[in-house]
């Protein structure tokens, strides 16, 4: 017993010494640290997979599994470029941390809106010689980012709640007399403000620039008249429907589709689907920008997009060319299907990017003031 205890304590002592050494290190002159950091970084690079490899960073979850098992291998097969899947929590902090630290990410899936001058600090300009963007709507492309897929925000409801007339539009979500039940909406301005304006009678083509006063007034009406719960993540949204916390509200088409496959009894309207893109960008710290650009081009091509949609049901193509080869039954569920062109509501990325900081500020003030 005593012997074992001794050994345990020795390990502890060893670790303690290591900590003490590090502590001494930290107390040293900062100038010396820079070289140490550089050395460490180069060691890290040696351990990372060989050059020519692209690290593609997604938002995690089941998409990540599909990316690493199906999509990236297909890219490697098509181009001969090795690719590794990584994931993050869509947070800007994680990207900044990555750029200050390990610098091993190349392509990042990006869900945020920010002014272009901030994008310029994070991303390399798209090499349009490689990333042609053919078949991708111009509105989804700017100097730094290109749409990777679409998140369709849909009027979604529990099937058992409305046996008669079914909710179709955002105005129906705002109408809690005809369609009673607790609402669930997203704690996020982009998409929710659009829904509020549509519910208030603004036509899809007149949405931008957003009339923020009118949008918040419309949201005020909603929270005054109806019970509303607010979700922060896509997972919450499905749990809320499945456990009866909410009966109607804003669903994300991919989540809704997957939940339906799991037997959750919900339906989504194909009217007024708000199209919110996620985008690809190449980090400024990428060690392999050319291969990274090649990945983006391959993935946003009709073939790449079709594979994404097939391998990950619910993933919505940005490239309309993808629909040529898609299974018609699957295509039926995807809001960017040309047949829904008249009913969907595309978001204006240039507007959202430029005005996001002020919009978010106002959202926080409004949201925390809901009583």
């Amino acid at each position, binding site marked *: 017993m005593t012997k074992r205890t001794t050994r345990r304590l020795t390990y502890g002592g060893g670790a303690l010494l290591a900590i003490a050494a590090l502590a001494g290190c930290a107390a040293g002159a900062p100038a010396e640290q820079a070289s140490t950091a550089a050395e460490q970084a180069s060691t890290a690079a040696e351990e990372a997979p060989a050059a020519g490899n692209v690290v593609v960073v997604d938002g995690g979850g089941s998409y990540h599994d599909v990316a690493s098992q199906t999509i990236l291998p297909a890219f490697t097969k098509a181009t001969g470029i090795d690719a590794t899947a990584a994931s993050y929590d869509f947070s800007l902090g994680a990207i900044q*941390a990555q750029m200050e630290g390990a610098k091993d990410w190349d392509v990042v899936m990006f869900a945020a809106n920010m002014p272009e001058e901030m994008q310029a600090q994070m991303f390399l300009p798209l090499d349009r010689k490689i990333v042609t963007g053919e078949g991708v709507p111009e509105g989804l492309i700017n100097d730094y980012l290109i749409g990777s897929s679409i998140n369709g925000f849909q009027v979604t409801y529990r099937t058992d709640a409305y046996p008669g007339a079914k909710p179709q539009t955002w105005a129906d979500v705002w109408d809690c007399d005809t369609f009673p039940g607790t609402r669930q909406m997203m704690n996020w301005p982009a998409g929710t403000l659009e829904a509020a304006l549509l519910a208030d009678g603004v036509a899809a083509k007149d949405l931008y620039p957003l009339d923020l006063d009118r949008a918040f007034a419309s949201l005020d009406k909603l929270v005054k008249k109806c019970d509303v719960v607010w979700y922060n993540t896509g997972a919450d949204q499905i749990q809320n429907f499945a456990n009866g916390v909410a009966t109607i509200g804003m669903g994300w088409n991919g989540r809704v589709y997957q939940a339906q496959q799991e037997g959750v009894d919900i339906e989504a309207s194909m009217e007024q689907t708000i199209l919110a893109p996620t985008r690809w960008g190449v980090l400024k710290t990428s060690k392999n920008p050319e291969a990274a650009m090649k990945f983006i081009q391959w993935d946003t091509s009709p073939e790449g997009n079709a594979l994404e949609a097939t391998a990950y049901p619910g993933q919505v193509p940005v490239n309309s060319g993808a629909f040529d080869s898609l299974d018609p039954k699957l295509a039926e569920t995807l809001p960017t299907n040309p047949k829904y062109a008249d009913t969907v509501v595309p978001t204006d990325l240039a507007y959202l990017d430029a005005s996001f900081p002020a919009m978010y500020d106002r959202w926080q003030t409004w949201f925390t003031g809901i009583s």
Partner: protein
Amino acid sequence: MTNASVARPSTRRWGSLGAGSLAIPPLAVLAAFFLVPVVVIGYRSLFVPEFSLVNYTNLFTKPSFLRTLVNSASISLIATAYALVLGSVLLRALIRSSQWIRAAILVSLVLPLVTGGELVRLVAWKIILSPEGPLNSALMATGLIDSPLVLIPNRFAVIVGLLHVMLPLFVLTAFSAIRLGNVRLHHAAQGMGSTPLQTFLTADLPKITPAVLAALLVTFVIGFGTYATPSGLGGPGDTVLPQLVIDQLKLVGDTGQAAAAGVLLLAVALLVLVLLTALGGIRAIYSPAGSGAPRSARNMSLAAGWTALIISKPMTAVFRAIHRAGWLRGLTKALLALITLLLVLFLIAPTVIGVVISFTESSILTFPPKGFSFHWYGQFFTDPVWVSATKNSVVVGVISAIVATALGTMTAYALVRGRFRRKTGLMTYTMLPLLIPWVVAALGLYLVLVQIGAAYTLPGLVIGHVIIALPFAVVLMTPAMSTFDWTQDRAAQVVGASPLRRFYDVLLPHLRPSLFISLWFCLVTSFTEIAFALLMSNTYMSTLPVVMFDGIRYNVSPTVAAAGGVLTAVTVGALALGFLAHTVATKRTSSRRN
């Protein structure tokens, strides 16, 4: 105190600080990996993007910051108040019950803190409180209500979720401190003809007050820095300031603003700490209740006045009347027993529900679960992502638990045996990592580790987890250290035992139970903490909480519940073994004495 002068020659060999010098390594580690990062954060709050006070003026001019600050404070205050009231019932039960009931209550208190962590707990509460969840179903089945109560998401759910951790924290902290107090006064008072209630109010209450204050402090600051529970179980009116810190970091990428909000949180927490230190709360953790801690004259007169009031003739008549009303006492007893039982159920319910739902066949978590399968456990034990993350977590957890407990033990020794002033300062200093939201501390540490090339490494994560586990280790090891009968050590010294030998053969056996608890607590903290883990992990290095976080955020994957189930099984197993070992050891000791 009397043997202090005798012990002086030997302690002098350790240097002029004596036993206090053992506090130097923990102090240094905290300085390098906690204070320096906090300074870095403070710097960023002033100099990012350029030097200005705008990040601070924003805090007080933007309504969202003020509202969330108020929310943080009020949520934590309410939950702390409930913890005090309900915790007192549990404390009473703990002090008075038989060994087995006490063990059962202790297990129910420890479970919420050590199984699965915040993530699994929140999933379980969401399911329990939902309109179609077990609580509403049970109430409807008994006919108490006709339609489901709206229990979530609102302030009620937030308080329930918070209380579920704050109640155990309060009770365990207070219990370990109260146990140290001697009960001689108690007997003296009873001998003089007081009723039990009077005895409690005059003899026991003043003695346990500092311990309870200390426990309240710890409980409040943890509630103040929390964000996952309010954001997971609450509505818009429950948005808390730490949530805004995280949003600034994650969604807006504004480190300067996030840093300023972090500094504000730290300032408020420090204010509370200073207040409670002034009231003598923090001292109770390292100095046994009522063991000759010098009291100020005003405290003395207060205590004397209080006692005079309680034992005054009219009051005594009232107390006698209460004492004689047997039915009242019986009713109170029955009521307290019922509340205790309900609290134990409240404490273990999420763990039980969490385990039950992990056996679902579906990939959507509901209660009751659909079907029965081990599928998600299979996934946990075979999926390479989960396996490698679990391995990393075990390595990080074990090393950081050992290091934190070692440092905590050294701090405890210095606090109890050292002869230096400003012990309260030392105690407060080691508690600091508990006060600042971990996401802010993590960001600061991250920035420092990047500079020395230790980010994205297991040692980097170990450092982070040592920092956050250290306060727990100090709180757990100090009472153990101060209950030790130091004359034994003196005796061993007299017969010529070396300091090392005295530690192994004399002190260690006494410390062993607390050491195990501390190790386990630190291990579990490391296993379930996500703020540091998310920042320190990357493409090539991931840990269990990171994978769990991913699973919850994206899909509420039942594998997360399965992981929670495994953690629960391991915890309960370890607790059972520990209790058995303790019982056997006690029996052996008592039979030897007989």
